[in-house]
């Protein structure tokens, strides 16, 4: 006899099974996991499981002096650290009312676009690897290294440049830097055709990526999608143009869009943005020498610096989408609250969970890469 309150446990259908995808999986960027429910090799449901890279950045920032956070923020998104620094600096500047000298603004734009190129090269490479095209991954990493060489020269650090202080940048350009940057751009441009041949026109890639992980523009907007992922659904929205910061309103560049909203379209948007970033950098190289003046506005002794009470939401366009800092100051020596609105947390959680449904097991990795979600930034 069963008790009256007995309820049979609802078991999933016997033809479905659960699979832990990650956290250590070559098809996942960093330590991140999906628990997927599969029917055969078809995904029925998915649940994002993050937290493996949680370091508590937002809380850590409340315990540090305003300037000390500059060393912390680039670690939030390893492949694209410059926007983290610049956006944090812009937030503190907004709270303090610091006017950043024009030369520093141009140098910041230069870093942001260099970082975008490096990040996109990394992402192509990663995506290619998920479809078995390893040469492209080696190329992407090798060419990104050449961008990092220039970062090393400019900032003293290859990955974590820690170069932007509230008020400006820490150093002026080394002698002859713009010529070497120009040489780098020449090299990258010479490589674009190779990338097209090897990757963007590669039938393996095209047939694997087309029609995979499709989202409509409406879905994208509902899910909080930004950046190249949003532009791949046909909406030409870019913070650089629609809410200009630094000197982007003085620069000439196109917003790259695609219509299909699938993994292929997202990669093609990045392919176009790489070219646009080169175009922007060419303009920087041309105009920066004529912009004189300091590269830093004076800031108080960082050991005795109170930022006026207030709050700010400052956003910029990172390689992955809209990145914003919501910073609250109560007039203290440390931030009262810092919230990072990172693009990846949307892309890797609610978007990824939905996009993989209906796709095949082998496409999960490339859907994740096509969204260019960065797990360290999701977890923070």
């Amino acid at each position: 006899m069963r008790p009256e309150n007995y309820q049979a446990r609802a078991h999933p259908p016997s033809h479905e099974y659960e699979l832990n995808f990650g956290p250590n999986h070559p098809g996942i960027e960093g330590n991140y996991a999906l628990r997927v429910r599969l029917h055969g090799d078809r995904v029925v449901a998915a649940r994002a499981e993050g937290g493996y890279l949680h370091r508590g950045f937002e809380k850590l920032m409340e315990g540090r002096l305003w300037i000390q956070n500059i060393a912390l923020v680039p670690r939030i998104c390893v492949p694209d650290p410059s926007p983290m620094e610049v956006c944090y600096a812009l937030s503190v500047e907004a709270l303090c009312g610091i006017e950043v000298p024009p030369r520093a603004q141009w140098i910041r734009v230069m870093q942001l676009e260099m970082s975008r190129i490096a990040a996109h090269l990394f992402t192509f490479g990663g995506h290619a690897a998920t479809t078995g095209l390893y040469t492209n991954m080696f190329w992407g990493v090798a060419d990104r290294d050449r961008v990092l060489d220039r970062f090393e020269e400019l900032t003293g650090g290859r990955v974590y440049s820690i170069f932007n202080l509230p008020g400006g940048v820490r150093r002026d350009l080394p002698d002859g830097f713009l010529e070497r940057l120009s040489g780098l751009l020449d090299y990258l441009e010479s490589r674009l055709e190779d990338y097209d041949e090897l990757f963007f026109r590669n039938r393996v890639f095209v047939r694997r990526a087309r029609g995979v992980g499709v989202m409509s523009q409406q879905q994208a907007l509902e899910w909080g999608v930004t950046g190249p992922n949003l532009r791949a659904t046909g909406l030409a929205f870019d913070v650089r143009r629609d809410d200009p910061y630094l000197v982007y309103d003085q620069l000439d560049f196109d917003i790259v869009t695609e219509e299909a909203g699938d993994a292929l379209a997202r990669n093609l948007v990045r392919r176009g943005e790489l070219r646009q970033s080169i175009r922007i950098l060419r303009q920087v190289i041309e105009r920066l020498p004529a912009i004189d003046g300091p590269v830093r506005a004076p800031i108080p002794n960082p050991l005795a610096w109170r930022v006026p009470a207030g709050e700010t939401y400052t956003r910029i366009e990172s390689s992955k989408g809209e990145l914003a800092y919501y910073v609250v100051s109560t007039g203290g020596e440390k931030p009262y609250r810092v919230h990072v609105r990172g693009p990846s947390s949307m892309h890797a959680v609610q978007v990824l969970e939905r996009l993989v449904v209906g796709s095949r097991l082998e496409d999960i990795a490339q859907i994740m890469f096509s969204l260019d979600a960065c797990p360290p930034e999701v977890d923070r």
Partner: protein
Amino acid sequence: MAKIRHDDRGSLLAPLKALGFFTRAPVTETLAPRPASLNYRGFHVNDWSQCIGCGTCQRICDNAAITMVTIPSLPQDPARGIRNQRPAIDYGRCCWCGLCVDICPSGSIALTREYIHICRESELDSYFVLPDPNGIHGQPFPAGWAKSEVSELIDPARQPMKELPAPTRIQGFDEIVQGYEPQQAIDEAARCVQCGLCHEACPTHMHAPEYIRAIWRGDAEEAVRQIYRTNPFAHVCGRVCTHRCEQACSIGNRGEPLAIRWLKRHAMDSVPDERVRELVTQDSVAAPSGRRVAIVGSGPAGLTAAFDLARHGHAVTVYEALARPGGMPRYGIPAYRLPDDRLDADIAVIEAQGVEIRCNTPIGAELTMETLRQQYDAVVLAIGLQLGRSTRIPGSGHRDVHTAVELLRRIREGEALAPPKRVVIIGGGNVAMDIARSLARLQMRRHGAIDITVCALEDFDHFPADPTELKEAREEGVRVLASRGPKEIVIDADGGLGGLKTLGVTSVFDEQGRFAPRYNHEDEQLHEAAWVVEAIGQISDISILGDSLSERLEWDRGRLRVDENGRTAEPWLWSAGDMVRGPDVVHAVADGHRVAASIHQALQQHTEAGS
């Protein structure tokens, strides 16, 4: 931008294009090792001869990667602001941000162009290293990210102090320094890196980092509390202290040191006098001990001792020969540097602790030291240096040859002193500047013009007076001559004073460093004047002690000998201040504390032994 055509299958031979890569260098070729970039932020290097051990790197480090380690073999010099500590870096925590480099006040630390640190198995703790001038591997690497003006995080410029211009201030004895505006004080206090070198350099170890921080927070009352932890002459030291703290200030290594003295002045001036008394008296809770202490002399040393002893519950009586308490700050420092009412405010706080001050009560014929010995449990002798030394050159006994301290006292007592049109002053210290500038004001009032010549033995590179004093004296029209030694005072046929003859000085000290000036006898000058003022040093008037006591005490070349706590050879008698330490207000305060602590200890032991 051309859209890409995916559907273009291209030629069947398209894959053969890949053959072209055989003729090109591989994209992922192994690069030959190259040196790091010029700005590279690699492992640290620290120039130990430049490093002052201030620990600012430790405070800015966002990962707590830096620990200051004491190196006993290195020099330690608090007066110059040098600590024998050097930063050691935990490379398990360091993130190579380089903020330590950008904030380093001495500019000693830099990051190198060193990419790799290999930890050998035998030295698994080698993540924690002490970088020295050779970096961390004993093999020098070129500096990468180093101090630069652009990335400098320290503000080298001090807030300007508002002062009366020379033409205005020469008209009277109004205070020259006008004090900081509230925002200026906050901005100046914000420059502090809280290294604490000032605290170590200060003779009385004032809690300067704490009160500077309090000023920065806008909490003047807390600043006053911090100041009174170690110094009851707060207003006085905020104005005329010799500010050893500023000589030790780490910011002074590459910029202007913090205006610590002016910040103290600002804190004291921004709290009303009554409130200061309340704040200081609040935590004074000692019950009366029943012990009585007499203090002879109401200068900084005597009154500091009185302040401490009264707060310990002892009944303190201060005997002052002159009409008002204060000692040298009252009778030796001109009012344009220290107005009377500020000194009065300090003394009022001391009196509020229960100290009784008896003015016009000289020790000597009527009230002897012996009487004090009988009536009190302990006696402090803090009479200072009130007599001017004489050069004893020919003519120095003339009636128009004066000593600086005597003239300064007469001016401060309100006597209508009438200096002649021309005055020569012998000496180059701060007292010489004080009397020169005071007489200049009186000359201006009386004659409408200034003619004062100061003749100092030393050259301008080794000038004894404070540079500010020298600068301001010159601005006010005082003529300052360096390297002039007095030869004789010229007396006219009618007995009047004609002037001073001086000789050029070739050296002041001999090979052993002893004071033995040498003159160039061919370089003789006559400075015409109707008065000559000697400002070459002061001595104590020890006649008040009486012969018998003087004989029982020990003396060291005319100076009373005391132990490190200020105790003399007589067990009931302590001595403090200028008469045993030489002239300096903040040393006198420190000495007052020392003596008070020693007396309190002695009285307590006495009480315990007796009960």
